[in-house]
């Protein structure tokens, strides 16, 4: 871990903290919510050993990167702009891209609008869904799952932050990362008044890991990460030019069968029966990992490294 270098890169008007190691073709790892470069700690080391230069930023709003104050600075176009600037400052023309959770959404959109900068993509946990021109993103979730659905609860600035603050940070971190609950996360305010103690830490998530996340989110707060959700309807407006366009990059998609996103009604059929492939015609492989939850790259680091490497070495 000490061999991982930490630098700050100036890109698209922000200072971005980047963790990197190794030399060779560049693999860019994009974390999700509420996460950090640290999610990829295992893959950074293993890809350096495999002859790649592995790079994992703290995305805008997270960790040691800048957090512009307004949610309007967190659209898909802002974040992709950050990454294009990052690649330009590294002098890298094309990358292998890996995304998880919000990082997967960013990765889909980077491939949509700048396919020329991506050699191949391994994406995890969140499939690509084309924009519905008739209904805004958050409005659609509200109609499907109600106003206590976590995406809806995340909208009002300050509201969910207040709820999170009622809970001990380490308990919150443990709850986020280790839960294997597959029900759609509806979190009415009452949930935070009495949150059951999470079970004992699993082997793959140590006390040290909990402390790392707890420290960073105690320093930084959750608002930066929450701003991605608050910018979803704005991103919906701004991505209208790409309605109907397919993603034309070679893709491998991986999810865990205990990931709550895999249990959203319709998802299994969408992934396995051709729905996803219609929009991502170069989708080459789909992997569902048994008994694995949302944070696959931490739960099964070696298997995920093998899956990613097995795909990228084809190019």
């Amino acid at each position, binding site marked *: 871990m000490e061999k991982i270098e930490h630098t700050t890169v100036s890109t*698209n*008007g922000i200072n971005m903290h980047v963790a990197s190691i190794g030399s060779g073709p560049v693999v860019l790892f994009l974390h999700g919510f509420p996460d950090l470069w640290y999610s990829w700690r295992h893959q950074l080391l293993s890809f350096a050993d495999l002859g790649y230069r592995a790079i994992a930023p703290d995305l805008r709003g997270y960790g040691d990167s800048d957090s512009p104050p307004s949610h309007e*600075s967190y*659209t898909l*176009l*802002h974040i*992709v*702009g*950050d990454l*294009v*600037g990052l690649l*330009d400052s590294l002098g890298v023309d094309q990358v292998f891209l890996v995304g998880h959770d919000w990082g997967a959404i960013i990765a889909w959109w*980077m491939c949509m*609008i*700048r396919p020329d900068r991506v050699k191949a993509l391994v994406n995890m946990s969140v499939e690509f869904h084309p924009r519905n*021109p008739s209904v805004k993103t958050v409005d659609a979730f509200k109609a499907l799952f109600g106003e206590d659905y976590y995406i809806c609860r995340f909208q009002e600035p300050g509201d969910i932050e207040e709820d999170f603050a009622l809970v001990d940070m380490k308990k919150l971190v443990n709850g986020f990362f280790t839960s294997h609950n597959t029900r759609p996360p509806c979190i009415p305010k009452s949930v935070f008044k009495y949150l059951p103690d999470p079970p004992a830490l699993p082997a793959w998530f140590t006390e040290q890991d909990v402390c790392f996340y707890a420290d960073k989110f105690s320093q930084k707060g959750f608002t930066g990460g929450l701003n991605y959700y608050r910018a979803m309807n704005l991103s919906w*407006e*701004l*991505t*209208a*030019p*790409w*309605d*109907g*366009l397919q993603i034309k990059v070679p893709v491998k998609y991986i999810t865990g069968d205990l990931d709550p996103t895999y249990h959203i009604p319709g998802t299994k059929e969408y992934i396995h029966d051709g729905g996803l492939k219609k929009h991502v015609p170069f989708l080459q492989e789909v992997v569902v990992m048994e008994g694995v939850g949302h944070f696959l790259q931490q739960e099964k680091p070696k298997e995920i490294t093998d899956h990613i490497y097995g795909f990228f070495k084809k190019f």
Partner: protein
Amino acid sequence: MTSEVREKKIKTNGIWLNVAEKGDEGEPLVLLLHGFPETWFSWRHQIDFLSSHGYHVVAPDLRGYADSDSPPTHESYTVSHLVADVIGLLDHYGTAQAFVAGHDWGAIIGWSLCLFRPDRVKGFVSLSVPYSPRDPNLKPSDLFKSFGDGLYITQFQEPGRAEAAFAKHDCLTVMKKFLLTTRSDFWVAPPNTEIIDDLEVPSTLPDWITEEEIQVYADKFQKSGFTGPLNYYRAMDLNWEILAPWQGYKIVIPTKFIAGDKDIGNEGANGTIKYVKGEMFKSIVPNLEVVVIEDGHHFIQQEMSERVSQEILSFFNKLRNITE
């Protein structure tokens, strides 16, 4: 001349656009995008010419103009909105790839279309406004500050300011001040002067436009106002933010740039013509032809209609391997 032009309303990207059309629907589609402060009528000569030379011509009133919808706030006038409006039109006509020509703000929309959806553009002709690569360290409003408050773009920023200034003149006069301008500077008004007061109306009309034709514009703007059109300028900083992913992007689609040598911004050593003929522009738009029309001013497709029509036709025909 415009009697056979069909006008209809098309729903696109959540709004209704009024669209003028002429020509056989089976022919390749040419999309014409007007500038500020104009309407599809600016393309009347090209609509007739191109449709009688084998093209299906489509010219919308852009968002905010004339008989098209005008969403109220400037946040709805980014290049993302404008390009999505255009994509919706192409989808309506079932056109996979279009020939596109844009003038002034229409050129900016065209350049943005080349960045966002190069897959939908066969070839692009821009009139008057070249592609300006984004400066990652300089927002448009900061760049404009260096020209002072007299710069028309700066004066167009504050909601209501330009509208109030324009309203001191009748619409016909406002239109004459714009359409008939022969100024080649960057349109900077003297201190404490609104640009609309600084622009002069010549004592006689030039031969390329009639009083009746100017009245066509005046009638439209009398009804729809200038806020929609001004909102394009008010969204310039937002556009700069949105365009971050295309930092340094090369536009490889075949393009042709046409301008008059007396167009706005051509005065002096650092003018537009010098820029488009330079190495920097060629490096980001490598597949480029440049045509400079002597004695041409800003509203070039009206002022030098035959020449512009021929230049557009020959370019699109060349891309189809047709020679006259």
